[in-house]
């Protein structure tokens, strides 16, 4: 184990991040983030060089199949990657207002996971909604208690004020009879209600960035629609940035401004939502879009991506998607692709577009 750690430390590159890059309302910038899991069976490169940024008032959707590293990336933003996982390289730069006319940049990836600084960020600047409302609320405390805890910790309000604010939040997220629900234990609430309570908790300190990790996957379509509506209206009111993680492309089409498609720890394509759905360039994005059954289309055979997501221990060489890719070239198994910028807001991680790597690639694609 020691030697693995050592090697990574030597290879670690320092990236210079400009301190005052905040003219575009950038909330958080993630650069070349690498998270590895050091298990007994070997090292898993769960996130392998991910770069993106989130602006205030905008929604970034992260899509991908299970095991592509989307949840771990989100957790890294709060420094809650648990052992054996570790952020081995990269920067997560959070820009925040220090006082009236001074902004500051904090590199979250370098913070101590249990330190004082990150604890002032969690729940205040950045908060998170988890996938399963069943398991992410404590069964031992009432809903109100859990929300009040966040408020009292970050705002220093007394019990009475915190309770008032909690009632306000519960009403705000559309929970009926908040004065009764506040003293209920989570098991008494339905799935949709619990998720609303989670949202109320996450928003109680007016965060500037909300991370939602599959918040609607466990819910019914009608409840899902309610929650999505709620999140969108809240975003409008507070100019909040949202990082929305999902594997449901229908939901993506509904809420995203920008989309990052992930495959085995890499962002394979990044662009605005219209480009991703109407003009996708990466073969994975293209096949993914063709493999979903659509409610608007009549019955026809679905196009499938051959094979399955490989085991993280047996990561293919070169481009990790090449064994399943319909446009794979011989070079794909040898060279790891670089991220290529097609237009200003369209990044693709594929050798087809890497002119320096191969010239006849374009012809093969067409």
């Amino acid at each position, binding site marked *: 184990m020691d030697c693995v750690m050592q090697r990574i430390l030597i290879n670690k590159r320092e990236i210079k991040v400009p301190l005052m890059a905040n003219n575009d309302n950038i909330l958080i910038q993630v650069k070349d983030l690498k998270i590895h899991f050091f298990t007994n069976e070997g090292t898993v490169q769960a996130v392998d060089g991910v770069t993106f940024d989130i602006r205030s008032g905008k929604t970034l959707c992260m899509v991908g*199949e*299970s095991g592509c590293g989307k949840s771990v990336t989100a957790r890294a933003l709060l420094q809650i990657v648990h052992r054996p996982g570790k952020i081995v390289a990269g920067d997560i730069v959070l820009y925040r207002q220090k006082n009236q006319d001074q902004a500051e940049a904090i590199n979250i990836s370098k913070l101590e996971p249990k330190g004082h600084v990150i604890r002032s960020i969690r729940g205040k600047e950045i908060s998170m909604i988890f996938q399963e409302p069943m398991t992410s609320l404590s069964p031992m405390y009432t809903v109100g208690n859990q929300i009040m805890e966040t408020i009292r910790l970050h705002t220093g309000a007394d019990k009475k004020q915190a309770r008032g604010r909690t009632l306000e939040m519960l009403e705000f997220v559309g929970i*009926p009879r908040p004065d009764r629900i506040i003293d209920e234990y989570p098991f008494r609430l*339905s*799935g*949709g*209600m619990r998720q609303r309570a989670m949202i109320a908790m996450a928003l109680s300190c007016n965060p500037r960035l909300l991370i939602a990790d599959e918040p609607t996957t466990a819910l*019914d*379509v*009608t*409840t*899902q*629609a*309610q929650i*999505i*509506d709620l999140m969108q209206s809240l975003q409008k009111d507070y100019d909040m940035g949202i990082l929305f993680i999902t*594997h*449901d*492309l*229908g*939901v*993506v*089409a*509904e809420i*995203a401004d920008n989309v990052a498609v992930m495959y085995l720890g890499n962002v394979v394509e990044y662009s605005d*939502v*219209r480009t991703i*759905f*109407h003009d996708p360039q990466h073969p994975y994005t293209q*096949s*993914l*879009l063709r*493999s*979903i*059954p*659509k*409610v*608007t*289309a*009549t*019955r*026809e*055979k*679905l*196009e*499938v*991506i051959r094979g*399955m*997501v490989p085991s993280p221990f047996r990561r293919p060489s070169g481009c990790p998607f090449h064994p399943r890719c319909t446009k794979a070239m011989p070079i794909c198994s040898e060279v790891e692709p670089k991220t290529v910028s097609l237009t200003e807001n369209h990044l693709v991680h594929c050798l087809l577009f890497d002119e320096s790597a191969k010239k006849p690639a374009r012809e093969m694609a067409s």
Partner: protein
Amino acid sequence: MTEQTPQSQLSSTSNSGKPLLEVKNLKMYFPIVKGIFGKISGYVKAADEVSFSIRSGETLGLVGESGCGKTTVGRCIVRAYKPTGGNIIYRRADETDVDLAKVDSKGLQAYRKDIRIIFQDPFSSLNPRMNVFEIISEVLRVNNLCSPKEMEYLVAQTMEQCGLRPEYMRRYPHAFSGGERQRIGIAHALVTSPRLVVCDEAVSGLDVSVRAQILNLMEDLRRDLNLTYLFISHDLSVIRHICDRVAVMYVGKLVELADANTLYTNPLHPYTESLMSAVPIPDPDLREYKNRIRLEGEVADPSNPPSGCYFHPRCRYAKDRCRTETPELRDLGNDHFVACHFADELELVGVRMA
């Protein structure tokens, strides 16, 4: 698995003839037991007067929100539960009828191989202590359906059909990925050459790319083996993709049943309409055109349902009559069944066609 002619053509020809299975006024009540003496204080009406039929060779979809009783109906049909009331008329291969709801557990053995079920969760539905051969062949062994020699051949053949390599027969479930496990689940259901397969959320736990593979596989198997599916799911896009006809359930009752195209484009029940409007459509350009119907409140409690039409507290068209009178499921022509008093008057909107 090669490209074939469009499924819709095939299914329309096979739809003729008498139904393979007819469910009539099916009731499944679960008692609520209170106190140490087991006093029954009430009933959860998980399925209440549910009636529909499944034609031979078709795929019937059963949709609804969680807790609406769709799984209960599926389990009654495979007789994992003994229904409280009603009939499940099954048409045997020799064209005679039998009421599965009345048959006792011994008599059921004869039908265990005809009606099979595929479960949702490929991780918890396979016994981790049995290898794939044992899992798939269990039904053959228990019911004495074939000799041990044939068994191995039959299992290998079924595995191959389901896209699994027969060499992996002696492996244990943990060695397989989610998609492969679901294939094992399908092989487990198909090894007895069933006539009706109940698919209970069979693709809900799978990733997008694997889900497409499994859906295609199920479609191919249906055609090749002349299967009939009852496809239970909450995912309306999947249901649209695979089903010929669709039944919608709400709090234990069937509210609408129609041909899939009709139901999606021209729903007649307000609940179906709101379900349709809630489906996210994977096209960002349609975002602005959608006017979503927001359902107020929560799904009604099946142990204490509202009076009259169960949907009336959440229905935006509800009138006084809905509060007092329970609507019956009635035929509005063209095999379109609706349980709503005002189905003829309301003008409801379905899914926008692309």
